[in-house]
């Protein structure tokens, strides 16, 4: 269900008003979805500032491309897609020179942590944010957004096999981080 239990008719009305250039409706739409979109951006970004930039760029794109929303399917799902594309483009523009160097030394051993329930959303978000760029993108797209490896490969311009390997490494690294966090917490 959409935020504030908006029914689809209301969403459509809001979209129609936005398309007519009604800024108050644009603001209303922004306020309805900005929290969720911020959390989404936060997962793709390195820090809160970057997430805010992504959010801003993403909403500008949403408002400029709103006429492309067919009305079929959830508005939020469509907005998430636009926001993800924006976040990926943003990250591509700000590629880290050493994004893979530190990762190659990470042992790729599987573990079975059951500690996720013990952590808050913010803590998990923070850990995901600490993942290197490539891993974070693939992990977010596959695990949270439900993209297939083929979709990820197309989206990021990489091979499917690369997407798979990045996901394995991301999982492994995230699990290590989770374990470390638990250890530190005592």
């Amino acid at each position, binding site marked *: 269900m959409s935020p504030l239990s908006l029914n689809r008719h209301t969403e459509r009305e809001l979209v129609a008003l936005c398309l007519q*250039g009604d*800024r108050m409706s*644009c*603001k209303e739409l*922004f*306020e309805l979805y*900005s*929290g*969720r979109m*911020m*959390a989404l951006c*936060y*997962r793709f970004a390195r820090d809160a500032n970057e*997430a*805010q930039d992504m*959010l*801003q760029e993403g*909403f*500008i794109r949403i*408002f*400029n491309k709103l006429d492309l929303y067919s009305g079929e399917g959830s508005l939020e799902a469509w907005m998430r897609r636009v926001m993800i594309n924006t976040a990926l*483009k943003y990250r*591509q*523009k*700000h*590629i880290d*020179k050493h*994004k*893979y160097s530190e990762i190659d030394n990470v042992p*790729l*051993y*599987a573990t*079975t*942590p059951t500690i*996720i*329930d013990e*952590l808050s*959303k913010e803590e*998990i*978000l923070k850990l*995901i944010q600490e993942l290197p760029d490539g891993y974070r993108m693939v992990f977010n797209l*596959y*695990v*949270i957004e*439900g993209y297939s490896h083929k979709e990820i490969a197309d989206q990021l*311009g990489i*091979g499917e*096999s*690369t997407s*798979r*390997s990045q996901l*394995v490494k991301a*999982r492994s690294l995230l*699990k290590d981080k989770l374990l470390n966090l638990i250890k530190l917490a005592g």
Partner: protein
Amino acid sequence: MKNFDEKIRDKLFGAEMPVASGVWDSIEKNLDRKDKRPVIWIMMLMLLTGLPALYFSVYHEAGRHVDHSRIMSDMNQNTSDAFNSKNMSASLSAPEQTAKLALIESKSSKAVKSLSRKDKQALGFQIVSAASNRSSLFYDTEESLADDFSRSSLSQLSVLDDDINRIPGEYVYSFPDREDALFGTKTECPRFREQWPLLYSFTDVSISHPSQSLRTQNSESSELVGIRSQSESSLPSFGVRTGFGYDFYNGLFVQAGIAYNQINIKFLHRQEDIINNKTSIVIDTLFNSEGEILSITRDTSVVQEIGIKETRGTNTFRMIDIPVEIGYHYPLSNKFSLRASVGIALNVRTVSSGYMLDANAESFRYDAGDSAYFKTRTGLSYLANLAVETQVSSNIYLNAGIRWRHYGTEFNASENPVDQSFTSLGLSAGIRYRL
């Protein structure tokens, strides 16, 4: 793995985070700015194409709707001048002068009719040799039509025009300089030609081979320049432009317009990459001497298979420019002439998309909106043309030649440490239309 993924997803998918208060204000400002962009573009296009078109259309229309009173006045003046000229006056006898005056003043056409054929010809009347001769205004076989000469409004001229199927052998008075304007057989206006006699419009297309130059001032990126030079090679490119120009009598000409150019670069990059992952599970079971299991340890490891990843595509640079040129027109023979020109092109918009290498020499795709890699600001490029031209009709010229252009170091940006410039050399073909 499923369990781990699902737990993460359940925790994060619907999560919300607080948003800073100033974000909406920034978005709103940006939306306002975007709204104004089309208006600016429309205004620029209107300035570039609208004004010359408007100017031309005004005079074009003037040619269709002749200012009758003005032309009538000119015509009277013209006829009087001819009559009063020294040669004409000297060759006419007193009765002839009286007859012509009578004709000009249109008090009576009888004086004209009373003249002999020779005298009529001496006065400037011409004999109609064919019914299709449309250059005549007045003829003496119809008294009423001769009387039309006296009327101040040339509305009657349409009657004359309709009644132009005259009988061969009749006398007419010719105004060759004004005939087209009077009868509207051409759409041009005398005033327009007088003011801008050598104004022309032009359109041409070109195909070229661009050579790309990559440079960097950052020593750390010099290796990247070498790798990129190997990955990027030129493909045939093209351009089209249109505009207006003016030929001066001393051979110089100036022209300006709007141009679209597209440069194509082939991108081909091969790099080592993970092409497959093999997962191996090793289970170690430790038994004691009695065959009982002491411990079981399981290790899962992923072995990466390294292969060659190939990325290929076409990088395009689409540019809209305003070229301004000055040149010299040199006649080679009666049929051909040489037109040489140099100029600058103001780049108003460049959109680029394709593939490039990042600082780690890894390929990635960039889109038209990624201004962090290629700037879209205004810039200058330099151009030179040399063409041979031939005239195919009274106001149409065809030309073909070579075109050189240097785009400067325009295509760099904050996230792209490599300066990228192009120099293209190609063939051009075009048409000029004298307005």
